[in-house]
């Protein structure tokens, strides 16, 4: 009889082991959980930031629509028709004073006349200018009245809203008696706007007089002391005629104006995206248009890239392809060291040294042929852009150098073996093979620059206006404000939850989306590049 093999495990085959456990986890599990946890935290933080940005930002559009609606209902929009008219008149007056300045400088500098003599010669012109300026006085008086009325109405409405809020808060904490005591007077826009609209005939009468005065004035212009300025006077006359010709349109717009006309929902978005004004804490009306900030950011970044790309890519090509080992060991750390400067130090340097130096340079007579030179603003796009270029150089250099390094050595050897010179090899083989890597390096540099805050806040000049593009390249010496700068500057002083506060969040959101898009494109290019090299 054969014994059946034992079902019991053979004690010599000891492959089972009791592992050390901590809270039911082995050491391997603990390590796994630790690293997994870290990765998870990163994802959660990113999600939270994005969520927070969107939550705070989206509310802006509701509040901004309310803001624009109030602008209409309180009659501010109505009054702004006249305000624009008055502003245009002021611009014409400025044109006249500019004309006087030119005559003045010709008389004193070229003809060497004395001051008294010059003023006498210009007396007829001054009389004309004064008459021109004074012609708008009735209009301005009317505007001042209307402004007061509209502002009062707006204030009344805001106070009512505040009271409503107060009552809501009291009710929320259960103080019913106090809540009932809060007096709320609903604003009747139709009634309150009545005096405003009733002014229309008065305005029309005033406007007719105004138009007639201007037309008469313009027909008998003062004799200019210099003939060469005649064309400017003709321009002035044409501008004024155009201005007067626009009056009926203004009157029609005012007559057709209706406070009940609804503000479209999308207007909250378009007034933000296409808004040409960023005006806050104004006595009259706040506007949140991102355009001046966006244009400022883009201009500064483009100047920075324009300066940084040739420098950084050129240096990368030199270090990677041409320099000897000793030069490499010296140049690489030097360029990478630039990024060790805190940007606030660079900004400080920009104010104290670079801005001053650039302005002094621009005032050299032998450089006067350059567009925009000489300029008087020390802090402008050029100053900020130059410093940002310094910040972008290490990023672009390092990444471009990596891209060049990734080109297989075999390509270079093959090219040399066919009798190519060093320059031919670099230009025809190395750079084309690494082009996508270089482009993505430039894009990541752009991302770095567009998010940079301290330098632009300190050096860009912080004037919130779209720069004057009609000057061509000279636009680059104008001061601007940027998206990053405005957030840093204004976030500290806004009321939490106000429309201004939320507007800043939306600016941040735009910045975030912009950086995201740039990084996404750069990553996409890098991915394609890896495949093509194989």
């Amino acid at each position, binding site marked *: 009889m054969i014994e059946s093999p034992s079902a019991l495990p053979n004690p010599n085959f000891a492959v089972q082991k009791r592992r050390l456990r901590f809270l039911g986890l082995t050491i391997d599990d603990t390590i796994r959980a630790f690293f997994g946890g870290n990765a998870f935290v990163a994802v959660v933080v990113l999600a939270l930031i994005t969520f927070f940005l969107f939550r705070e930002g989206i509310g802006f559009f509701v509040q901004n629509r309310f803001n624009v609606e109030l602008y209409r209902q309180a009659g501010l929009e109505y009054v702004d028709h006249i305000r624009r008219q008055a502003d245009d008149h002021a611009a014409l007056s400025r044109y006249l004073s500019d004309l006087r300045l030119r005559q003045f400088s010709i008389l004193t500098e070229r003809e060497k006349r004395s001051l008294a003599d010059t003023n006498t010669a210009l007396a007829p012109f001054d009389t004309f200018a004064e008459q021109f300026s004074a012609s708008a006085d009735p209009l301005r008086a009317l505007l001042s009245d209307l402004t007061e009325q509209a502002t009062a109405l707006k204030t009344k409405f805001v106070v009512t809203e505040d009271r409503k809020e107060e009552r809501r808060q009291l009710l929320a904490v259960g103080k019913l008696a106090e809540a009932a005591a809060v007096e709320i007077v609903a604003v009747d826009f139709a009634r309150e706007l009545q005096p405003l609209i009733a002014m229309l005939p008065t305005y029309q009468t005033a406007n007719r007089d105004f138009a007639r005065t201007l037309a008469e004035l313009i027909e008998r212009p003062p004799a200019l002391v210099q003939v060469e300025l005649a064309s400017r006077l003709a321009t002035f006359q044409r501008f004024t005629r155009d201005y007067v010709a626009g009056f009926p349109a203004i009157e029609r717009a005012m007559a057709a104006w209706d406070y009940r006309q609804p503000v479209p929902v999308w207007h909250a978005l378009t007034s933000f995206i296409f808004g040409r004004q960023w005006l806050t804490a104004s006595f009259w009306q706040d506007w949140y248009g991102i355009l001046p900030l966006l244009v400022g950011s883009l201009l500064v970044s483009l100047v920075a890239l324009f300066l940084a790309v040739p420098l950084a890519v050129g240096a990368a090509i030199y270090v990677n392809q041409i320099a*000897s080992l000793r030069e490499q060991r010296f140049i690489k750390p030097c360029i990478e060291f630039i990024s060790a400067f805190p940007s606030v130090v660079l900004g400080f340097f920009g104010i104290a040294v670079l801005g001053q130096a650039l302005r002094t340079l621009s005032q050299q007579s032998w450089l006067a042929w350059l567009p925009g030179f000489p300029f008087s603003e020390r802090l402008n796009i050029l100053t900020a852009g130059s410093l940002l270029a310094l910040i972008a150089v290490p990023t672009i250099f390092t990444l471009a150098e990596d891209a060049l390094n990734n080109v297989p050595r075999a390509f270079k050897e093959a*090219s*040399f*073996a066919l009798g190519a010179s060093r320059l*031919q090899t670099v230009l025809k083989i190395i750079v*084309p093979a690494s082009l996508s890597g270089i482009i993505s390096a430039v894009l990541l540099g752009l991302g770095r620059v567009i998010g940079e805050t301290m330098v632009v806040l300190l050096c860009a000049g912080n004037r919130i206006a779209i720069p004057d593009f009609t000057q061509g390249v000279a636009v680059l010496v104008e001061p601007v404000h940027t998206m990053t700068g405005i957030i840093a500057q204004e976030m500290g002083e806004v009321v939490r939850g106000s429309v201004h506060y939320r507007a800043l969040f939306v600016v941040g959101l735009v910045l975030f989306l912009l950086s995201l898009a740039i990084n996404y494109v750069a990553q996409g290019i890098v991915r394609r590049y890896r495949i093509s090299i194989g």
Partner: protein
Amino acid sequence: MTTRPPSAFARSSALSANSPASRLSPAVTPEVLVAIDHVDFFYGATQALNDICLQVEAKRVTAFIGPSGCGKSTLLRCLNRMNDLIEGTRLSRGTIKIHGVDIYQRDVDVIELRKRVGMVFQKSNPFPKSIYENITYGLLLHGRHEKKHLDEIVERSLRGAALWDEVKDRLHTSGLGLSGGQQQRLCIARAIAVEPEVILMDEPCSALDPVATAKVEELIQDLRSRYTIIIVTHNMQQAARCSDRTAFFYLGKLVEYADTRDIFTNPTNPQTEAYVSGRFG
């Protein structure tokens, strides 16, 4: 073939009188094209070549064999001065003459030299460009731009490299899309497009499968009538199959240099015998 003085890569065109005639006449006694004379070569402080004397005959296939690190590739790369690209290398003694011109003289134009001495590398390395552009790259470098002319040379080179039939319909697709063997033949086509006199091949088949290897070897047989070929190989059967003359290197020295048949059947040096019979290396 364009007629240019053989020593065109040297600005001083000395010693060129004897060569054109012998190139045209059928060689009874083979002409010496490359003369290597007592060459010492260093990578920094390490000596890679020690007193090498060797004469390569025109229109023959010469194989360099030997174990890894014996200096055969280094010597090959000396012949078109590719070692210049590596920092710290120097030819400390001796001369290398091609057509009687010392290619390490100061007045030698390295670019012209490399045009005349082409090279095929161990790992196929077509440029990340189209097949057509790979072939024309060398021609454009040397200032030949006429489209018709280029088309002609592309076809002739690809035919010369036995690749034309396989790629004629996709000349403008990337050279990197070809198989390994095709890529290597593309590299050979690229090298012969500029009409060199010497083609250096640095283990051209080591990364190829047997079928692709056979094709390249056939190609070498076809090319031997028109070019002087020097091939470095690890594969002794390959040396035996392809070459007319074989040089065996060991530890930076030339051990034996003779007709291939003699090296493989009747070596005079015991080290050579040990190596070719597979007892070491």
